[in-house]
């Protein structure tokens, strides 16, 4: 294990776009189901509002940003706060590897959108291992 104990997961906060919803669903998969002990969900809106606790969280641990579009607000905001970015991901790039999973819907994603979120969460899972220095053997033990 490295000295880093947790990784921040910072999804897009954009409302009204399917790709943003995919980033948030992936963040829930990761922080609630897959890796709750290794991750902290960071709401971008609190960072924008200058919430001190959230800012301290960002400064304490590396972040993986999950942006819905190429404006990459999550990545920019972590940079603004002086946080360390372990990896910045954009949903569109993951979609390019899964062309059959075109997301649709906003409040409720279609099945393809849910599967795309799952694919994104799987990518993040590997990055969390790398960031925390967890080997495959340790993970399988």
């Amino acid at each position, binding site marked *: 294990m490295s000295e880093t104990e947790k990784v921040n997961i910072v999804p897009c906060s954009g409302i009204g776009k*399917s*790709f943003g919803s995919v980033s948030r669903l992936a963040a829930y998969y990761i922080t609630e189901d897959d890796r709750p002990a290794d991750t902290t969900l960071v709401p971008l809106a609190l960072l924008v509002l200058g919430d001190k606790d959230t800012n301290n969280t960002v400064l304490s641990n590396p972040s993986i940003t999950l942006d819905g*579009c*190429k404006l990459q607000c999550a990545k920019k905001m972590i940079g603004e706060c002086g946080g360390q970015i372990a990896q910045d991901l954009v949903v*569109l790039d993951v*979609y*390019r590897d899964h*062309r059959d999973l075109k997301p649709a819907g906003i409040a409720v994603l279609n099945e393809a959108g849910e599967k795309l979120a799952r694919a994104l969460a799987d990518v993040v899972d590997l990055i969390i291992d790398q960031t925390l220095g967890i080997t495959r053997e340790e993970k399988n033990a």
Partner: protein
Amino acid sequence: MTEYLETTVDKFIFKVATDRLFTPEGLWVKNEDSLVRIGVTDFFQQRNGDIAFVNLQPVGKMLELNDEVASIETIKVNLSLSSPVTGKILNINQKAVTKPEIVNQDPYGEGWLCELSVNNWAEESKKLLTPEQYFIKMKKDAEEEVKKNE
């Protein structure tokens, strides 16, 4: 050095390159020594969102006016682009296929789509819009789009 006409609509800034002609749908057409280069406008790329995939017709393909020259899938829509000229495809921009974001980032430059040899340019170019004409149309479309979303 390309110069631009520029306007701000709501929070968006749109540019129109002044050294080429345009279709009302948002393709630009630039003729250099009988080689016509085609791409999409800044307004087109901003209106349709981040581009996921660009599909181009193969080199050597003969196109009639209005034949599909490219198809683009963005996060919002799937679009078929009609050729604004008759001609043969001589070059395609592989970078636009492998890194479609280049079309969003630099629509008038690195994000060009393909180049055609043309033989009816004098006639067909008369049907295209000048930068000033396209600028007026684009501004009207952008303002309507903003109103629609209010």
